[in-house]
């Protein structure tokens, strides 16, 4: 049973299959190159032309992903809303920053969201807010489409994360969700900085290789 946001696989099962078929079909990008999808190229051009429908479409596609990621990292719904808005406004104002030939739009959006979220967490004010947050706060209602993608992709990633040696998993989670730098991870775990870096690198590569072996390295682009 997949448990995500209090809902179960049965509820999302049909959609997951649909998304699985859709996302898996984009696999096969050659190493060293990325072929942007027609939708990504079209989206970029429409954003450059300042088509508000493109912004809505992109928000529909990635809004839940960005908000969920920000909420998870920051632990504050209001701040996660600000991050979500800032990420989409950045894309709206500077669509040229996305290059479909160098990476997937979803990854790009996720990187923007994560950077802004940890940027906030790393500032003192954010830490204060995090400490003071309402212990009863809960993550908001899951979105079906994005959650379907999340189930398909995150389940594979999560399964691979579970397979990682504990020390690699801990280093990755401290960095990604707690916003620690590798130096802070090293200090927190009492290990040399080089070891912290290598645990992150080896862990991510191990997952990437495992996904590639399943033909899923770009399944959710």
């Amino acid at each position, binding site marked *: 049973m997949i448990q995500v946001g209090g809902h179960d696989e049965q509820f999302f099962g049909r959609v997951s299959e649909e998304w699985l078929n859709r996302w898996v079909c984009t696999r096969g990008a050659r190493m*060293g190159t990325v072929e942007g999808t027609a939708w990504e190229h079209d989206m970029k051009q429409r954003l450059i032309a300042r088509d508000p429908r493109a*912004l809505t479409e992109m*928000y529909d596609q990635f809004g839940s992903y960005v908000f969920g990621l920000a909420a998870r990292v920051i632990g504050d719904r209001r701040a996660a809303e600000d991050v979500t808005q800032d990420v989409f406004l950045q894309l709206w104002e500077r669509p040229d920053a996305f290059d479909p030939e160098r990476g997937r739009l979803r*990854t790009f959006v996720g990187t923007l969201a994560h950077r802004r979220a940890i940027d906030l967490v790393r500032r003192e004010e954010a830490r204060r807010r995090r400490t003071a947050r309402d212990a009863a706060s809960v993550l908001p209602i*899951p979105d079906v489409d994005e959650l379907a993608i999340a189930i398909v992709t995150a389940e594979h990633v999560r399964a691979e994360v579970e397979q990682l040696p504990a020390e690699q998993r801990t280093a990755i989670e401290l960095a990604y969700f707690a916003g620690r730098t590798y130096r802070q991870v090293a200090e927190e775990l009492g290990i040399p900085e080089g070891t912290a870096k290598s645990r992150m*690198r080896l862990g991510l590569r191990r997952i990437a290789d495992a996904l590639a072996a399943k033909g899923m390295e770009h399944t959710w682009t």
Partner: protein
Amino acid sequence: MDLTPDEFDDLVGAYALDACEPDEVEAMERYVAANRDAAAEVERLRVVASGIGAAGASRPPVALLERLLTSAAERVSPLPADEALQRETDRFDAFLATLDERDLGAPTENGLTVRELVQHVEAVDRAFLAAADDPTVAYIGPDEVAAITASDLPGRVDESFTETVTRFRRTREVLAGLRARLPADRRVAGYGRDNTLVVRAFETWTHHEDACRALGRDVRLPDAEVMRTMAELAMKSLPLALAVRGTTQPGRTARLVLEGAGGGEWFVPCAPGETPSSSADVVVRASVVDWCRRFADRIDADEVGISVDGDADLARELISAANVFAGL
């Protein structure tokens, strides 16, 4: 800091997780920009990182999309400098056409009457025009503006307002033509060519508001595109403003989010000539109108409504420095 392939490999995992130090991030970005295989490896690991983050996908509050679309509609592109100047000129000109003799004698908050304010705008325009063809004019700043005003206005006491307006239009037309006449890299009294025109648009708006307040009339804001053009200048000038006040903070970055029609987001280095980091030491959110009025020294630092996330002292210094280039 330039990376070797081994150093790239050492950092790539931490980089994909956004767990590097700022100088390492810059070095990685330079390396990746120049190396497609490196970029592909970063992308491959970021797909994994994003997959870890996707587990918590959650629907944002319904109202957020509406808020986003409203803000996006306000995030207009800046105008070419001459077009921004022309729009503010046209708005001011239309306002001048509504004035009668009684209005002209009304005192404004900077000590000039409404009539003198228009003469002042025209006189400073003329000084910039003269400087455009005279590279020996190093700078026209607040002191110079005050001196120009003091020397020009006494000789125009008997000038009819029709004549004042005619001179203003004529001078302004030539001023707006500087963008077409001068090369883009030409300095005009210490300002870039286009910045000169935006400075004059800024001053036109500011004095337009001064006159409206003096007459008890409603203040109307510039078009969003003009406001954005002026906000760009206000943001670009901040590192230098900090330097003028002697309060630069090398290596630090502020993210300023100006809200409202013509607003936007800027990553501002806290010392001149530096490249801003994508990781901000402070995020300041304020109204774009407030910030531009502060730039023009029409409101005090504590009148700018802001929210601050991060280094509050740095935020206060930015607001304090924002008005250092304001003249009369």
